[in-house]
């Protein structure tokens, strides 16, 4: 490829996704630095470097992916899904040996959580299914049978790990894709009512007190050990004490005193709020909204329904993580251990979001140069 061709490619290349993601990531890594430096635990002080390292790897992978033609996603959609389901089964059978580490698969020096990648695989598989079925159809119950099977197989495997949080996320991602693919409103309302009534009846009457406690322990095994309300209230204190402008960078007191045990992963948003206040959050949330908006824009800018569904699916991965994580750290939802995209520490999670970004970029690019 000569110089002008590279220039041409660069002109057509959609940098918007990477731009937004990099902006959010750098806010995240700076925040991570503060959260981990303040900690008494020395082992945490290098985490931001590791996160940067993960980022470079993820970025390389995502950039490569951004040059993949979208028809390949279609072609290999089911294959990727199948491999991922197989990996989940592997986790359940092999992962059992290492106590409490059932979420991880270890391949030599690399260890990763197949449940994280399942979020993308499910988008590919459902995208392909919904493209193959009559795209004019407005979806009813009957049309949901196969997508439900596609969703429930990995979902159950993930819940069995046990990781209810990720399981629910997979369900929500599928739901948003079905919703976008014009699921009848009537069906949506019915589904809502059924799950609401079914869930609460089960919880209230179908279970005895000790079983309920077990479920809570199942959702979050650490809950009782650390005192179920403890993380929640410390997180609220961290967020609330930030007030409008925050205490300032590296001035978090909650993190330094180990009041928030998971301050670099699930509770990273609390530290961000403590240091940067309501104003900081406003900026951060705006960046997220810009990113989400870009996905929605992409869903309508493409010419193929498969690409469109993919864009919405990828957006929903970002969206549900962001919404559930923020909701849980500020006490709107139970604590289910969902990371905040690009801010929480964690290699697999970061790679997942970067891949989403790479796929979205390749979809956008495909409008111009494939």
């Amino acid at each position: 490829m000569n110089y002008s061709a590279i220039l041409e490619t660069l002109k057509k290349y959609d940098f918007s996704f990477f731009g937004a993601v990099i902006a959010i990531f750098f806010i995240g890594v700076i925040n991570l630095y503060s959260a981990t430096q303040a900690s008494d635990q020395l082992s945490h002080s290098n985490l931001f470097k590791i996160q940067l390292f993960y980022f470079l790897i993820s970025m390389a992978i995502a950039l490569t992916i951004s040059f993949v033609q979208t028809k390949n996603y279609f072609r290999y959609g089911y294959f990727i899904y199948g491999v991922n389901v197989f990996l989940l089964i592997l986790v359940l059978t092999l992962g059992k040996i290492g106590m409490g580490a059932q979420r991880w698969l270890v391949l030599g020096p690399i260890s990763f959580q197949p449940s994280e990648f399942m979020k993308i695989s499910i988008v590919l598989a459902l995208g392909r299914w919904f493209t193959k079925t009559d795209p004019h159809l407005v979806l009813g119950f009957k049309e949901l049978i196969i997508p439900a099977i596609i969703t429930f197989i990995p979902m159950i495997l993930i819940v069995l790990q046990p990781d209810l949080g990720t399981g629910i996320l997979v369900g929500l991602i599928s739901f948003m894709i079905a919703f976008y693919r014009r699921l009848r409103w009537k069906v949506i309302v019915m589904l809502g009512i059924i799950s609401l009534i079914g869930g609460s009846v089960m919880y209230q009457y179908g279970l005895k007190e000790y079983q309920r406690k077990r479920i809570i322990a199942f959702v979050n095994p650490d809950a009782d050990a650390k005192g179920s309300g403890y993380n929640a209230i410390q997180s609220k204190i961290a967020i609330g004490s930030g007030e409008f402008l925050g205490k300032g960078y590296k001035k978090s007191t909650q993190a330094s005193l180990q009041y928030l045990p998971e301050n670099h992963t699930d509770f990273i948003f609390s530290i961000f709020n403590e240091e940067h206040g309501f104003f900081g959050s406003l900026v951060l949330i705006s960046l997220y909204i810009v990113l989400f908006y870009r996905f929605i824009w992409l869903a309508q800018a493409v010419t193929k329904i498969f690409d469109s569904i993919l864009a919405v699916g990828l957006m929903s991965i970002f969206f549900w993580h962001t919404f559930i994580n923020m909701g849980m750290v500020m006490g709107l939802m139970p604590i289910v251990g969902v990371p905040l995209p690009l801010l929480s520490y964690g290699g697999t999670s970061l790679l997942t979001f970067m891949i989403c970004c790479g796929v979205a970029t390749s979809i956008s690019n495909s409008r111009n140069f494939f």
Partner: protein
Amino acid sequence: MFGEEDIVKSHKSRADVITNIILVSFAIILARLWYLQIYMGEAYRRYSLENSLRKETVMAPRGMIFSRNNELMVHNVPRFDVIIVPQYLKTPKETVEMLAQRIEVPAAEIFQKLNRAKREQASYIPVVIKKNLSRKEVALIETENSYMPGVSVSTFITREYSDEFIGSHMLGYISKLDKQGKKKVKEYDEFQYIGVAGIEKVFDKHLKGDNGFEFVEVDALGRKRRYLKSDLLLDDIQNRPAVPGLNIRLTIDRDLQLAAYEALEGKVGSVVALDVTNGEILAIISRPSYNPSIFSRQLTSDYWSILSKDENEPLYDRAIQDHYPPGSTFKTITALAALEEGIVDENTEVRCNGYFQLGRKTFHCWKKHGHGVVNIYKAIRESCDVYFYKIGTKIDIDVLAKYAKMLGFGNKTGISLPRETRGLIPTKDWKLKKNAVPWQLGETLLTAIGQSYVLATPLQLTVAYAAIANNGRLVKPVLIKEIFSNAGDIVQQGNIEISPEKIFSDKTLKIVREGLFQVVNNPNGTAWWYRGKGINMSGKTGTSQVVRFSSDKIFNKCEDNEYKLRHHAVFAAYAPSDNPKIAVGVVVEHGCHGSSAGAPVATAIISKYLEKYYPELREKYLKEDNKMLAAHWSRKKAQAAEEAKKNDEE
């Protein structure tokens, strides 16, 4: 047919709905942030700055330990420590000096402690300044608390062992988990106490209970208080109450324990007493001993180093962790095996000239000039070595080992105490493996009298004699009667194990038991002079050689030797002889004679036991004893008179 682009466009309305969902979702997030950061922000800011919410561990009271008669043996007593929370120390110099005066600790020392803590831990973690405050010191600090911000008195529970030195090996002690220890035992909280020896260790899971926690609000000076708006903040907090540990009722009798302890006063050794009918241990004492209460108080490491430097090793439980050659007490087992195998019977007679020749080797009897003609009764009664050497020439060592093992020798008894040793019963295989040399006949001879390689713990010895007393049924020694909760629910019963089949025939047992009876109750018996009164005891004396003496010294008086070279005294007994209830095994290190050093310990325990549980039997035996003694003395007198008459006539 639409084009594909139109299909995409037909989803625009849904895309718009999703956009709205996103906007509404983040509107909710921002509204919540507004509530937390702007509306409630000031309250939360104060909370975060003062760190006024503290999670405090509620220590679970450790289970208590009772004797078989429900007397409290181990329980918990509150203790007061003075602590400083560095975070709340507003005027360090003044406060520390003030405190130093009141608790009589140099201010420099307090500063040293604070500085060390500063390097190692966060400033909100309390630093213990002085442990075990007196009531007066507590009062002094509490009344002037407001002048000493950051100083407070914290209450701890210490473990108190009512009988202190008595039976400490069996009860064991507890120790605080340090950071390293915590890593090993996951289910324990840091700084929780853990049992490190004895019952405290083996039943730690039952005794420890589960710690709870409680969230408390404290003000800037570390004092507990409640703020306005607190309910709003604290409503989703859950406290967890502590679950007290389970209590244990032992099979131990405290009076017997005391009697055993006193009987071993000034000696190094151990004694075990158990109920022959069910294996319940009534007393188990090892001396020298230590005071486990000190371990749960301060100076743990100092006390530990004192104990571990003591050459008599007070931390060592001699009753189960040490093994000795059982000496002549093992002849009983040789006799049982020989009778059962038909090697000897009631009528077999052996002539003892004071030695036994095997090839070129001479085996001495303890009695230099010999016992004369000896049958099985006399052999046991007077502990004739030659008789048993003779058996040794006829019995296969593996057969003898088989019988010894049936009586529990050479294996752990399975008592619920840590670090029991298994002793040793030699066999041909064992020796070949160990030394790569085949077994020698001479070694069988020595094994037959309880020397050479045989090793047994005092507990094993007692268990074996208990089996003889219990008509040949082996019992497993047990220490636990029951484990129960504070509410009185019995969680676990001690499981009694008695072998369903008799190990020996009644005929064999009858002969051996008659022999053992004569040891104590025949004027020629080796324990006659130390038989005690009114206890109807049977038993066997033994001495176990510490070093082998050359033949010129072999008949020297044991007491003339250097202390460390003297024989160990061994004595095993049971009582009453006609209907045995209690068996006792004693080992007194360097005690020289099983009779003079060992037997009095056993008689003290058995007397106490019969007095306490069978007073009517005790009275009966006392009367019988007096009658028997009177007859004995009149016989002696008559003999003397006759001899005098004879002399006169001459």
